[in-house]
């Protein structure tokens, strides 16, 4: 038989729905296992007023338990008087049986006391009277409340509960609500109970109402999109089906019905993202676009379950939208009047982080940083000037009314204001791209200047936070510094810029105020961790990552070296060279600090001479790691012969030191670019 639990609530916040349904599913799987109840399948679904669990073919009885537990030796069963010993009594009690039920069984080690445990399965009908309430209690929400005298806590008041096993009601009470077989329809209508005969008929019973309820989330989502597309088809356009808004809308309706309306043409002068942000986030409406993605003067609003009186409702929605967009126009026009220069001058009143000055100070720092990096990268003078100009306005829009109202539009609005002021296109784009990438894998700035300014902003944020002692640890990363660092590294790699970690940290920390909590020393490793994540994602083995680790090598070269090394290590010859390299490194670890220079006259053995010659014969290679590695193959035999025949640690100190000097020379060519000694043996 199937089982059904429906927790009927007042309006749950849309964002609570999915997490609650996931928990309900996980907790059910767990609690059914604990109770040894078998079933074929289970699923959870629901609306903002109904959290539903449906279990298919739930066994009528839980499984029997039968097991034997070994206890103390048989001689401890009874004492000389024939009474149970304390040990026997204790063993029986521990296993929940009487001492009389203990049995003695023969084993390899003689007779022992056993407890034979047999637990009969329990009827599911009975188990569910505790399992269902437990499940309701087990749900956690981001925020809970109390609404009645039992003090039960839940996200919003529970007003009805359906609890069925087959057609039978599983009876219990929670938060003053008795379980039943009654569901309720859309909340705007008279609440007449809908009797649910059995779990199988639940979904259809709700769907077959005069005002249908689509209790399945996927079905509701399809209905929403169908309904929106029905509206836009009539208009001859498409809707901007924003994924977040779709999911939110699906979760605050029981039966979404779309309705199209128009907006005054005068609002079309608003920047596109500002207009769509007002529609989507403030009033939950879908923008309408043409095939090219250009905004059209229409909107799509969504009603819950009702499609009468459309004209009046449409007028209502339109008025609300008009009021909000009028506000947006007001903010936007005020900002345009103010201009970027005046916005920027307000930055001295906005603090960055404690001890690291104001946003005006930060602006000055990133302008300087942008300038330094542009020089390093040999930007031409026009690009360098544009980059500096963009950096000097990068934070200006933080002082605008629009960004104050809609924080997510930072950067974008800066770009818009710069366009309106007729700034160079490169500057406008750089401002728009300043906060990219928004996540670990999302789009990077596309332009060179945008990349540079964005990089400077991130480096300063990182260096300033570390200098103020704010270093992320574990899950604690309130300023999202990992994301910032990842963005910085990705920008450098994408542009193939020759910048090393040490250089970045040096430049970024130059103009920071002094701070007692300074943790800047941790920043290079923190940046390296991001690069390491990227290398790991490209499936570079861990030992190769260690081998190429270097804070003075440009990040793009480190990445390239890792790829080359991984490729070249397919050659067994190079693997053998790497093995020898490890021996060289190990021996030199214990060598004295001040070795005398290599004395060729002291090289007596054939293998010593050969190794020295092989090193001398290596072609001089610069900036070609691949060729360098290939050439190292020539050292394989000489190195192996050397280690096979030559004892470095001889008693004659002069000879010993000379051999160490030879190995030091070998090391400089082996470890010229990467640390081959870090490599593990490949099998």
């Amino acid at each position, binding site marked *: 038989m199937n089982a059904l639990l429906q927790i009927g609530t007042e309006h749950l*916040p849309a964002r609570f729905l999915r997490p609650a349904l996931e928990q309900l599913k996980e907790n059910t799987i767990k609690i059914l296992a604990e109770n040894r109840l078998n079933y074929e399948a289970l699923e959870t679904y629901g609306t903002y007023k109904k959290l539903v669990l449906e279990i298919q073919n739930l066994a009528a009885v839980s499984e029997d338990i039968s097991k034997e537990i070994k206890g103390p030796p048989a001689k401890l069963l009874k004492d000389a008087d024939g009474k149970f010993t304390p040990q026997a009594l204790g063993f029986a009690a521990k296993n929940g049986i009487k001492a009389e039920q203990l049995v003695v069984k023969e084993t390899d080690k003689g007779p022992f006391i056993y407890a034979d445990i047999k637990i009969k399965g329990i009827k599911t009908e009975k188990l569910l009277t505790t399992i269902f309430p437990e499940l309701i209690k087990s749900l956690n929400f981001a925020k809970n409340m109390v609404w009645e005298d039992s003090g039960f806590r839940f996200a919003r008041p529970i007003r009805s509960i359906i609890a069925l096993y087959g057609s039978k009601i599983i009876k219990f009470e929670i938060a003053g609500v008795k379980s039943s077989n009654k569901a309720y329809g859309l909340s705007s209508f008279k609440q007449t109970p809908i009797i649910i005969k059995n779990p199988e008929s639940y979904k259809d019973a709700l769907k077959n109402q005069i005002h249908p309820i689509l209790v399945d989330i996927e079905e509701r989502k399809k209905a929403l999109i169908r309904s929106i597309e029905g509206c836009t088809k009539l208009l001859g356009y498409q809707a901007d089906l924003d994924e977040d808004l779709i999911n939110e809308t699906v979760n*605050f309706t029981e039966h979404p019905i779309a309705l199209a309306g128009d907006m005054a043409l005068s609002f079309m002068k608003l920047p596109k993202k500002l207009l769509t942000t007002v529609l989507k986030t403030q009033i939950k409406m879908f923008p309408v676009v043409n095939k090219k993605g250009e905004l059209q003067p229409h909107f799509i609003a969504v009603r819950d379950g009702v499609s009468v009186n459309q004209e009046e409702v449409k007028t209502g929605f339109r008025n609300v939208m008009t009021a909000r967009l009028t506000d947006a126009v007001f903010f936007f026009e005020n900002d345009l009047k103010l201009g970027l220069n005046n916005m920027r001058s307000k930055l001295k009143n906005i603090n960055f982080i404690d001890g690291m000055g104001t946003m005006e100070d930060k602006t000055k720092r990133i302008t300087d940083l942008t300038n330094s990096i542009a020089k390093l990268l040999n930007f031409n003078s026009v690009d360098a000037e544009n980059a500096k100009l963009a950096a000097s306005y990068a934070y200006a829009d933080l002082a605008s009314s629009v960004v104050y109202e809609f924080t997510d539009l930072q950067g974008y609005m800066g770009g818009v204001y710069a366009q309106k002021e007729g700034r160079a296109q490169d500057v406008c784009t750089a401002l728009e791209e300043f906060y990219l990438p928004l996540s670990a894998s999302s789009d990077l700035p596309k332009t060179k200047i945008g990349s540079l300014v964005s990089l400077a902003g991130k480096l300063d944020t990182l260096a300033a936070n570390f200098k103020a002692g704010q270093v992320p640890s574990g899950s604690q990363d309130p300023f999202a510094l990992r994301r910032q660092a990842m963005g910085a590294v990705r920008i450098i790699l994408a542009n193939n810029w020759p910048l090393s970690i040490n250089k970045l940290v040096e430049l970024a920390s130059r103009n920071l105020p002094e701070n007692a909590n300074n943790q800047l020393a941790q920043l290079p490793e923190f940046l390296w961790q991001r690069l390491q994540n990227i290398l790991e994602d490209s499936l570079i083995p861990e030992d190769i990552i260690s081998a190429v680790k270097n804070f003075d090598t440009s990040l793009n070269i480190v990445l390239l070296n890792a790829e080359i090394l991984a490729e070249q290590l397919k050659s067994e010859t190079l693997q053998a060279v790497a093995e020898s390299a490890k021996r060289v490194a190990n021996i030199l670890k214990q060598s004295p600090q001040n070795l005398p220079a290599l004395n060729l006259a002291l090289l007596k053995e054939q293998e010593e001479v050969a190794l020295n010659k092989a090193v001398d014969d290596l072609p001089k290679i610069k900036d070609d790691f691949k060729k360098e590695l290939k050439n190292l193959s020539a050292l394989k035999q000489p190195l192996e012969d050397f280690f096979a025949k030559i004892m470095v640690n001889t008693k004659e100190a002069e000879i010993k030191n000379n051999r160490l000097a030879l190995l030091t020379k070998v090391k400089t060519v082996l470890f010229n670019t990467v640390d081959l000694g870090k490599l593990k043996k490949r099998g």
Partner: protein
Amino acid sequence: MNFQDIIHNLQVYWKKQGCIVVQPYDLEKGAGTFNPFTFFGSLTPKPTSVCYVEPCRRPADGRYGENPNRLGKYYQFQVILKPSPANIQQLYLNSLKAIGLDPEIHDVRWIEDDWQSPTLGASGVGWEIWLDGMEITQFTYFQIMAGYNLKPITVEITYGLERLAMYSQKKDTIFDIMWNDTTTYGEMVKESERQFSHYNFEEANVANLRRYVEENDEECRSLCKKGLYLPAYDCAMRVSHYFNTLEARGAISVSDRTNIIAKIRHLAKLCAGEYIKQHEEKEAAK
């Protein structure tokens, strides 16, 4: 429906649901929640159901009667029910019918909105309710009042009367709302908006206001000590209003603000504590 008829119909509707129709409390307040029936009413187990119109003063929101959508003084209609009835959402939706807004043909949306008042040391869980996209009501299950966890739970329904009237009468501005068949809302309030804006933004005597804050603070504390929590609470309400006026006057710094809010919260807690104590003593004596 005329403004005055919306008020009348809400009163008739909630009267039928067993509410006492109370008259507005005669002191300035920033929100209906400050009304003693709401504040003290939520604190003890004694059941309560009242409704009333409450004028609210928000000095900083005034616009000299020139901005048709901003007012320094406006009207809320409050319903306070304790314990909260199980069919409260339905009761609310029916109240909309009573003022001519049928939920069966409009879009009624309950948007998560948890309320809190740092000055009263109060918080609750609930929604703002949208009618065809317009926010018309705040619906809150109080959880904490004056720092005390509440039991039983009080539900507070606050109707924005001007919003309801604008929607019902299809008016674009507050001033165009018909108060009755012949007089507009604008005619009733514009002059008062103009004069009070001048007072709140330009004329209010900052030194006096600061003195009133101190005097009422002191008086509230001393009255609480004497067990007179009702007049004490009047003083706390006055402190809150003078604070709001000082803020409109631009005389409050960030640290000032935090301090005065903490001061009012403390006064509210003193009054609440005294009331709870006396109530418990009375119950014990029964």
